[in-house]
């Protein structure tokens, strides 16, 4: 065996590893779930509907993460790749972690969702999901303090609907990320 053979073997191994990782934890699922939740919740983010937007996220945030966990588990059973035994304990820990997020979700919903997505990305060693979660988290945290919608208002845009517009844009960001990920998962290299 020489260096070129070794390089080819390492390259094959990396390709297999990426494929198995994507089959086990597709990035598209959390990105699309939270894209739809963010877009659906965007119209509730107006001052006169307070606290409906907060209540929405306290319910939708944990429900989104639980849905993603359920979907992964179902997918793993179907495709024949995954953790199997012992994962109920992990699911219990995940449920607890999600519930601990509830107070944060009330005050800073988008940042809390992004933190959950970042934790998921770290566990999966998923740089793609981490990138979208980080961008969503930074912009979402700014908007949780109305920084972006106030800028829009200063520019004469948005008005009362500034925050729904920003939420909508962030939802679209996740949607694009999810659709690109879905395309890549359907057409592996």
């Amino acid at each position, binding site marked *: 065996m*020489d260096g070129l053979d070794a390089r080819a073997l390492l390259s094959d191994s990396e390709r297999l590893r990426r494929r*198995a990782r994507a089959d086990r934890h597709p990035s598209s699922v959390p990105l699309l779930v939270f894209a739809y939740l963010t877009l659906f919740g965007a119209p509730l983010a107006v001052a006169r509907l307070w606290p409906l937007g907060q209540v929405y996220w306290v319910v939708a945030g944990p429900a989104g993460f639980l849905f993603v966990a359920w979907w992964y588990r179902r997918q793993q059973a179907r495709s024949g790749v995954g953790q199997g035994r012992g994962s109920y304990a992990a699911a219990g820990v995940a449920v607890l972690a999600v519930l601990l997020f509830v107070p944060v979700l009330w005050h800073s919903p988008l940042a809390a969702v992004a933190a959950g997505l970042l934790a998921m990305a770290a566990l999966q060693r998923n740089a793609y999901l981490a990138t979208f979660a980080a961008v969503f988290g930074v912009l979402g945290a700014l908007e949780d303090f109305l920084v972006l919608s106030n800028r829009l208002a200063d520019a004469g845009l948005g008005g009362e609907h500034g925050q729904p517009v920003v939420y909508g844009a962030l939802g679209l960001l996740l949607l694009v990320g999810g659709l690109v990920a879905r395309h890549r998962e359907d057409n592996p290299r």
Partner: protein
Amino acid sequence: MTSDPSPAHPTAGLRDVVHQRARLGILTVLGETDRADFPYLKALLRLTDGNLGRHIEVLAAEGLVRVTKGYEGRRPRTWVEITRPGRGALAAEMDALKQLVQRYERRHLRPAPPAENGPPS
């Protein structure tokens, strides 16, 4: 008394059981997913039933993977799971391969010798 100052060649770290391409593929996939079923491995690695079965037997005989049979609903499934020694063997193989690549690059991708001073005659 003499001692050999040169470090062992990286191929010394390669283990035949693990090094074979299909078996390394099986361990790589399981190293990422913890476990996988027989049809998934067969499709991903593009192996026949017989081939995959033989490679898994070799790995199981060395204690690098564990095979369990069970049911998912009413459907019989054969699961292959990586063991702790299997993870260790995979990591050692990867290290040896990386060292081989580094050694190759050091020898073949050396910078060109500096040009001599003065214009060519």
